């Protein structure tokens, strides 16, 4: 019998993006192959020494997201007014910085006090990533369709993954878990030396959270079989 493998993290997905079109059904073993692959990556990221220069704000995002996703509240106070104002001013801009957009959206998601409608902006990022499998440094024109600048900034993909994790936790809309799986496939497909500038345990955390969500859904199946070690 042919061994079922998880091909989606096998090749560098910056260089070889996967279209995910008409993927073949490989049976129940495929789900275990996915969990095994994520488990392998989680163990690797756990043991990786993060000696690069990590952004202070990313350390905060990691800690605050951990509180939100594991305990449901964020005790780490942060003044988010300027981020809210930034998001409100986007419609007047012809070019937006993706990092500013992602940081602002994550701040809003982490704050339970603000009632800013983030869905349309998150949907914009989801659409751009799903169509191109890239996240560009900037987006411009009125429709924000056109990406420019570097599209291999690993931090942007990690921030996007974190944002999707938070938004899926809030909405339980499978659409966001779907994109999260693809972004995390990409992160796992990269040479791990490219991820040392992310917070220590930051990648491990988003992968663990994703697998927990998949297992939660899988547990609703009549014949739940996958084992996560």
């Amino acid at each position, binding site marked *: 019998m042919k061994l079922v493998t998880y091909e*989606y993290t096998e090749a560098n997905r910056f260089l070889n993006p996967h*279209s*995910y*079109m*008409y*993927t073949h*059904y*490989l049976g*129940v073993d*495929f*789900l275990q192959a*996915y969990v095994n692959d994520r488990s392998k990556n989680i163990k690797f990221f756990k043991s990786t020494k993060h000696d690069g220069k990590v952004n202070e704000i990313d350390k905060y995002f990691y800690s605050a997201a951990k509180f939100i996703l594991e305990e449901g509240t964020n005790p780490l106070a942060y003044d988010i007014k300027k981020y809210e104002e930034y998001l409100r001013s986007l419609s007047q801009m012809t070019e937006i910085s993706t990092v500013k957009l992602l940081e602002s959206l994550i701040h809003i998601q982490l704050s339970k006090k603000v009632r800013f409608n983030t869905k349309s902006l998150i*949907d914009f990022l*989801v*659409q751009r990533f*799903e*169509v191109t499998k890239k996240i560009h440094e900037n987006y411009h024109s009125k429709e924000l369709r056109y990406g420019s600048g570097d599209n291999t900034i690993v931090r942007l993909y990690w921030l996007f993954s974190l944002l999707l994790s938070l938004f899926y936790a809030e909405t*339980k*809309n*499978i*659409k966001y*878990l*779907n*994109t999260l*799986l*693809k972004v995390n496939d990409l992160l796992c497909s990269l040479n791990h030396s490219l991820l040392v500038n992310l917070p220590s345990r930051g990648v491990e955390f988003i992968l663990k959270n994703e697998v927990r969500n*998949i297992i939660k*859904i*899988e547990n*609703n*199946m*009549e*014949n739940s079989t996958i084992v996560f070690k």
Partner: protein
Amino acid sequence: MYLNNIGMIAADTSRSKYYLEELINNQLIPKYILILLGSNNELLPGQKESKTENDLIGLLDNAGIKYNIASNNNINSDEVIKVIDERAEKVFIFSGFGGVLLKNNILDIGKKFLHIHGGYLPDYKGSTTNYYSLIDKNIMGASAIFLTKKIDSGPIILRKKFSSPVDRTKIDYDYDSEIRAKVLIECLQNYQNSSHWDFELENNEGGETFYIIHPVLKHMAILSSRELN
């Protein structure tokens, strides 16, 4: 019986074959059929397998139905648009290659393109939506619309919900085509009976836009027999 004002654009896919078999069985033959052939060596999206003898052409030849073969397989090419533009038929059943969208230059020629979307509109727009609706609600759907510039947002002529198939591994190439064909036939029969297009829901706004389902979620949708989310 020929559908006098209706033509068909049929890409060489298993779905087009399914449509044509049902159209022939129900004696609803488009007045004009334009076939978009895939190249011999390349498997285009929606094609189940490459063939040396063409199933679609064989089907039409056996039924004694005339057809034309497009000079290339690109529905948006000037050559193909010219052929469609010069035809007398005002409405074309559109069964293209998966993932290929009609661009403005063809949507602007004044013809209507009848498309059967695999999903219940307006709730499930975009790609592979039946897997999402299986996970969410354990149902599938198909909706007949006239294509507009906004994806899956044209006026809804007819939409139906379907129960999930017993063998979910056959969704992509069989069951999805089968339910779409059912909606197509009913839609055309209604038109034949009334000589005009009635709309079930003209305002097809709102809903959620989904993107190609990740194989992990697809496997869970196939392996389960109830809603999971």
